[in-house]
């Protein structure tokens, strides 16, 4: 990573708002590219962030995504209003999901969110 300062910011995410789902992650992707982060790292961070954003939209009333891009590290923190994950071990399994049918019909909730975050995060 060839950046020499830290870039920080945050996005507010509203639960249930599918029409804007992915906007925050898309914007973060643009920011990362503009400050010169390499493509493969951008892709990984964007994917992990997108999954976190979708989790907030699908399961919680609202949340916030914070990012900090600094030399040597990109940190993404997703905070939301809950309800939280009952069994984290189960949720980490590929294919496990508690999503309702309408979410599945939107192309989400197939139980790959957390595995995806794990795969792409450091």
């Amino acid at each position, binding site marked *: 990573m060839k950046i020499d300062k830290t870039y920080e910011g945050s996005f507010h995410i509203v639960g249930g708002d*599918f*029409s804007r*789902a*992915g*906007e925050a*992650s*898309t914007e973060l*992707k643009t920011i990362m590219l503009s400050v010169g982060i390499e*493509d493969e790292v951008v*892709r990984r961070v*964007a*994917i992990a962030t*997108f*999954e976190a954003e*979708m989790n907030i939209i699908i399961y919680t009333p609202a949340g916030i995504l914070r990012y900090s891009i600094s030399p040597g590290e990109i940190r993404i923190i997703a905070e939301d209003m809950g309800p939280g994950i009952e069994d984290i071990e189960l949720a980490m399994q590929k294919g496990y999901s508690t999503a309702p049918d309408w979410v*599945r019909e*939107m*192309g*989400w909730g*197939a*139980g*790959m*969110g957390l*595995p*995806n975050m794990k*795969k792409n995060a450091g």
Partner: protein
Amino acid sequence: MRLKEIVITNSRDSEAEIEWACATDLMSDVLYYSRGNSVLITGLAKQQAIRTSDIADIKVVVFTRGKEPDRQTIELSQKKKITLLITPYSMFTACGKLYEEGLRCCPE
């Protein structure tokens, strides 16, 4: 492989380079299994498919069964410079024809 060699419906011409294929309606699977220069074949003819493709660096998306996307979906694909194609074929037939042409799924 050049897109125009594998185009399965009438569409605008494209020089996009395609190496792999990913066929799914579930967006997390696109994010998990796809590689950058893949074509996404999906029945989810919605904005979400374009957003997901943009995040995953996918440049070509094929909507199956002749599903016409809404205006917002088309606009988003233009804004993100993603080539959007519509095929009259089902996902099964689209996969079958592309597989015949030698296209393969993204290696994990």
